[in-house]
């Protein structure tokens, strides 16, 4: 990719003195990137990382901005979207343990990330109201497939910067 084809980093992704906003509406879109899609034009659980699934929230970014992480590495990847309301509130392990899932607005900036990203959010897992960094395998697999099923490809005409 030539230097001239690398887009400028979007100003709307800068913090500009803003604080995190934990108000999410169920119909707000969340954006995720994937290297490849299958024959259905979708992804599977193997393409989704969870918990702490990194997404950009639609309230503060355009779909294409999720490709601007570590510019220009991901500019030719695909953008997928799903709604906040698609995230299952709770899944239960066969042994009875229950895990809850929430989306959290988690803006990032250097040195954690090379660039500021005010739109960055994460789908996080909780157990007994405590954050879970790792889930039991079966629950982990199920939430990832659940999210993958609801992710839809953002068409090219909606990927203008």
């Amino acid at each position: 990719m030539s230097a001239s084809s690398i887009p400028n980093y979007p100003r709307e992704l800068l913090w500009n003195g803003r604080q995190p906003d934990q108000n999410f509406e169920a119909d707000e879109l969340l954006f995720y990137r994937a290297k490849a899609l299958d024959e259905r034009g979708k992804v599977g659980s193997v393409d989704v990382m969870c918990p702490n699934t990194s997404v950009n929230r639609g309230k503060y970014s355009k779909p294409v901005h999720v490709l601007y992480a570590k510019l220009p590495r991901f500019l030719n990847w695909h953008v997928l979207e799903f709604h906040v309301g698609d995230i299952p509130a709770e899944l239960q392990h066969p042994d009875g343990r229950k895990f809850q899932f929430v989306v959290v607005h988690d803006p990032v900036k250097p040195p954690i990330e090379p660039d500021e990203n005010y739109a960055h959010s994460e789908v996080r897992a909780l157990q007994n109201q405590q954050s879970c960094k790792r889930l039991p395998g079966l629950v982990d697999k199920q939430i990832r497939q659940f999210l993958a099923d609801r992710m839809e490809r953002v068409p090219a005409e909606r990927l203008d910067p």
Partner: protein
Amino acid sequence: MTLAAITRNSATSTEDRTEHRGQRVVSAMRTQVVTAPTGKVCAEQLSPIAHLGKALGWVVAFITASTSPSANARASTWPQAEAGNRISAFAEIVDEMTDLDADWNGYGSEPPNEFAREVAKQILLDATTVVVPSRVTASAQGGVGICFNLKDKYADIEVFNSGEILATTSDGKTVPAVWEVKPSDSKGALERIVGFLNS
């Protein structure tokens, strides 16, 4: 997701298992691939002799698959010759995953380690006589994903760097079924996936 929904899904999973037992009875007509490597995959198997044995296994598995009476039951529509080539190409893709960088997707995912790659290739070898995957990819969770889809149905077997192997089937509408796969029973998982895709 309500608890009721999860309970309902558990019932569905049980039904699936019953259905797949039936599928396994039908597929018992398959010819056994005697040269296919079995058991735990480990670094010692990477010797030239092991490679030769694996290559022979691919050839015999492919020829056996071509004459198998259960070939028509496969979910894939690939002709046999193309199916063998396709699975072989997937094995090469797995080998090329050694080139992936740490954080290859910008989400902090680890590239597949040697264990995951070797087990994935073993499952691909098993798949030769059962079902042709639609896609093989590095897993965002660290490992290798072997994916299958037919129309709106999706399934995969995911081999994690940790050594765990999990599979899922999903119709995209209801809660996905997930289960643990033992390395010695990857064919059972593949047959369950075929049953799901064909249902």
